[in-house]
């Protein structure tokens, strides 16, 4: 059954540093200015901030690996198709793989796992992606901008979840 509405992943949602570099797309740069993609939105969040299910759905996987650190992926229906909400750099999760969740259920707490622990204080965040495939390709493949489901981007002004 298609989700009528999608909730926000945090109680207060604001793009980290109010910077476009933390939104979706080829928005980042490396040493000589070469463009690099960012696969989702980074929401500012002190470590331990509660993370919510953005829709009714099912916990597809939880894993702690690589630069993403502790990750949780939740399947949900949107626009008649299965999508996946992917949360990364978490500190803890509070649901089990395979569990059904309701929109706004607490599912995790933000952290700085993976290599987010090297960022300056004040840069702690939730890395949040909307995927069209459970295991997407690298880069932007298999992902869409969260803007597609929220219709706004809280770049300068926070949105209350």
């Amino acid at each position, binding site marked *: 059954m298609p989700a009528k509405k999608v909730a926000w992943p945090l109680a207060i949602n604001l793009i980290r540093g109010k910077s476009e570099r933390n939104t979706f797309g080829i928005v*980042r740069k490396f040493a000589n200015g070469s463009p690099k993609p960012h696969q989702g939105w980074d929401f500012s969040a002190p470590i331990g901030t509660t993370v919510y299910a953005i829709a009714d759905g099912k916990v597809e996987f939880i894993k702690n690996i690589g630069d993403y650190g502790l990750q949780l992926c939740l399947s949900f229906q949107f626009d008649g198709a299965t999508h996946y909400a992917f949360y990364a750099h978490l500190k803890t999760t509070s649901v089990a793989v395979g569990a059904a969740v309701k929109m706004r259920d607490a599912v995790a707490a933000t952290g700085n796992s993976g290599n987010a622990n090297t*960022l300056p204080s004040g840069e702690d965040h939730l890395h949040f992606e909307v995927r069209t495939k459970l295991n997407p390709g690298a880069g932007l493949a298999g992902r869409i901008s969260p803007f597609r489901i929220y219709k706004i981007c809280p770049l300068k002004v926070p949105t209350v979840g």
Partner: protein
Amino acid sequence: MRWKFLLQCFGKRVALGLLLVCSTACSAENQNTTAPQNYHVVSLKPVQIDVAQLGLTNCTSILALSTGRALAACRSSKMDNHNDYGLRVYVLATDEKSPRILSVSRGLGDAYAVMLQKRSNAEALYKDLILADASAEFAYGTAIYQLQGDNLKYLGEIGYVMMSEDNNPISALNVTTIQATKDGFKVTFSHDVFLLNKDGEYQRHDARKLFMAFDGKSIH
């Protein structure tokens, strides 16, 4: 002359054996001088330095470079501006009471972490290279600097990465070989690697057909 000398000293059979050994050794020596010379990885040990007094923070790597010198990847918010920001590579003097900055790179942009590696080749035109391997949620690639005395000079970037089992770009340093050339160096890979295209997706490249070269101006 050598043949006669060997005959006199060791007799016919031993002399022939010695000649064969010499001939093989000389041939190998000749091959070494003409074959490409690989840079080797120089093992650098982590070192504790109080870099806070230099205004450096969030170091992801601090390594002892040589006596009284260290190599570090750290942030310095004072140096950041709109176009030049992020982690930087530093050469530090550590032989006095307080450390000093001797050389610093431009910012490495939006990378969250930078791991440093030194590769050397005493015979090469660019004898000492510093590789800054960067990543955020996935590997960005590697910036290459020449270390000349205490100075860092940016030479270019290797954008190629490996792909993990769960399809995330990871560092390609372990499969990267650098060889000296007449005017710079050549970079090859022992495993297929991936490069980001303009659409933000990665394309596989056959390692057997791929190499990059630095010709004294840029890496291409």
